[in-house]
């Protein structure tokens, strides 16, 4: 039953999140740097430090601190950011849309690019074209987003300086938005000049995140497509006189897509994880960039909130993938 699968996955997800919460909490409590000592002015005495610690609840016993934090986290209260002096939940809510837009754009680009090349490669199977695609792809498979991002900097910011190097939007245009989903909102409200500016900021980080995933899709989808093209139903359709492109798109693709879909889902979590460093390189104001700042500044409440948020996103993606795969596979659906 699908319901049992869902219930089981949610139970597992909660157990995993609890593990994540414990790990990050314990990790932060063994940090040698004292966040309060870092933020207080040099002239402050021990009494001031104690008062500030009490203010952030850092003077309570560890178990009490953990209990308070977990109790808050369950109700969506992650405390106040030590460096930004704003509720963690507010900071996360204002930064998350930028990362979501970036990650989803990268996913779409990766699927289109990877799918397109896989289909082209299938059509060219057995020719020199396929050999070239395979050879290039085996190299691209090795290249992580970090290297892509910097290579794109060299290409589009230095060699052919056509794209903005940092940020998400020209600051002069970043006004009059009702939400933080700048790209989606500007498209929906018909402000295409603004949307174009946002898109030009997003091209490099999007490509850096998309290209490694596209390479993975090319390899697996092309292999599945080639196997499907040898099946009887494709032969039958071929006898009926279907063209090669139609055979691939209509007959083979439908049967070959399953494994690629499952793998793409898993790889999407890596893509989201990759936003941390890619956002850093392009000074893109999402949660990934924020996370590095939070760690460097020892902003405990913010780090804890961010890590749990990432964990939650990863788990939601995994559940989504499992459900999609289960609903596509009739054997699992009734299993």
């Amino acid at each position, binding site marked *: 039953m699908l319901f049992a699968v869902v219930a089981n996955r949610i139970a*597992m997800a909660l*157990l*995993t*999140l609890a*593990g*994540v919460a414990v*790990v*990050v909490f314990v*990790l*932060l409590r*063994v*940090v*040698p*740097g004292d966040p309060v000592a870092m933020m207080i002015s040099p002239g402050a005495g021990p009494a001031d430090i104690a008062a500030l610690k009490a203010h952030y609840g850092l003077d309570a016993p560890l178990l009490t601190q953990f209990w308070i934090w977990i109790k808050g986290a369950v109700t969506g209260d992650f405390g106040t950011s030590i460096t930004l002096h704003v509720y963690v939940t507010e900071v996360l809510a204002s930064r998350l849309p930028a990362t979501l837009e970036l990650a989803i754009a990268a996913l779409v680009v990766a699927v289109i690019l990877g799918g397109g090349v896989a289909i082209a490669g299938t059509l060219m199977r057995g020719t020199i074209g396929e050999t070239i695609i395979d050879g290039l792809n*085996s*190299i691209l*498979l*090795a*290249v*992580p987003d*970090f*290297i892509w991002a*910097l*290579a794109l*900097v*060299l290409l589009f*910011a*230095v*060699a052919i300086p056509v794209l903005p*190097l940092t940020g998400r939007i020209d600051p002069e245009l970043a006004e009059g938005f009702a939400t933080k989903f700048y790209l989606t909102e500007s498209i929906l409200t018909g402000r295409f000049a603004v949307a174009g500016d946002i898109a030009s900021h997003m091209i490099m980080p999007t490509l850096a995140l998309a290209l490694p995933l596209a390479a993975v899709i090319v390899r697996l989808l092309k292999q599945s497509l080639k196997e499907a093209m040898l099946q009887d139903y494709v032969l039958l359709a071929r006898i009926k006189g279907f063209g090669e492109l139609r055979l691939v798109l209509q007959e083979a693709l439908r049967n070959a897509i399953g494994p690629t879909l499952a793998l793409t889902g898993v790889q999407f*979590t*890596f893509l*989201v*994880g*990759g*936003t*941390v*460093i890619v956002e*850093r*390189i392009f000074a893109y104001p999402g949660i*990934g960039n924020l*996370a*590095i700042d939070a*760690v*460097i500044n*020892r902003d405990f409440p913010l*780090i804890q909130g*961010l*890590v749990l948020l*990432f*964990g939650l996103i*990863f*788990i939601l993606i995994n559940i989504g993938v499992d459900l999609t795969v289960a609903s596509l596979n009739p054997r699992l659906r009734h299993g």
Partner: protein
Amino acid sequence: MPTDTAPGPPSVVVRLARDPKVIVAGGFILVLIVIAIAAPLVAPQDPLEQNLLNATLPPVGFADAQPGFYFGTDGLGRDVLSRVIFGTRISLTVAFVAAGLACLIGSLLGLVAGFFGRLADAMISWLVSVWMAFPPVLLSILLVAVLGAGLHSVIAAIVIIDWTRFCRVVRTETRAQAQMDYVVAARTIGFSRTAILFREILPNVLPVLIALLTLEMGIAVVVEAILSFVGLSVSSDTPTWGGMIAEGRQIVHEAWWVLAVPLAALFATVVAFNQLGDGLARSLDPVLRR
């Protein structure tokens, strides 16, 4: 391949020696190792020597280039090529030590989870799923922040993060092997469980493990570069590719080569480890061999 006819399949060594991926990529990594060991002899300049009069000299072949500084100089006038050459030392140290330790710990846990099953399996699998819920880059930055910047912390962070890769693969492989006839036979003869695990199963998991280890070395090199880039790896006096990349990123409009040269080195190294891993997997894996 007609492996069932007369002279029999070629030995592993012969297969490895015939694989162009193994030859080229393995050769490249061997050269890197030699360069790392012989860095003071190979490097044309002192990698730490600053000379502000020589700052941001372009590579040889461009206007204003100076002989002896083949790939130009950085913002402090240090020779880029020499710094990249010395940077191989950190990159390769991290590649071998961190990937090796992650392999050791992950494989042991994977063997235990896959072979003993039940409670051990449930606990280790839960631990893996918790680990997988962390973005790896964020976890590594967090760990190094906790442990304090430096080479040891970087290695520890990579081991703590990447043992799960080995654990998952070895667990799956061990479970598959544990079902096979030879394991059942060994058990019937009266071999102890530990003996079966290390003398029967481990050798059969080894090919997959070696290929994975090679891939992991490439990943470790990138993670070290990322941590250097964020400023959390070794002190800025020691040349590292990531540190150079970070500096190059800052002055990319004035001196693109400070970014391009270490990035090219990183790219080539990662691709080489990856291709070598691919080649090894193909030559060593009994399933793919057929």
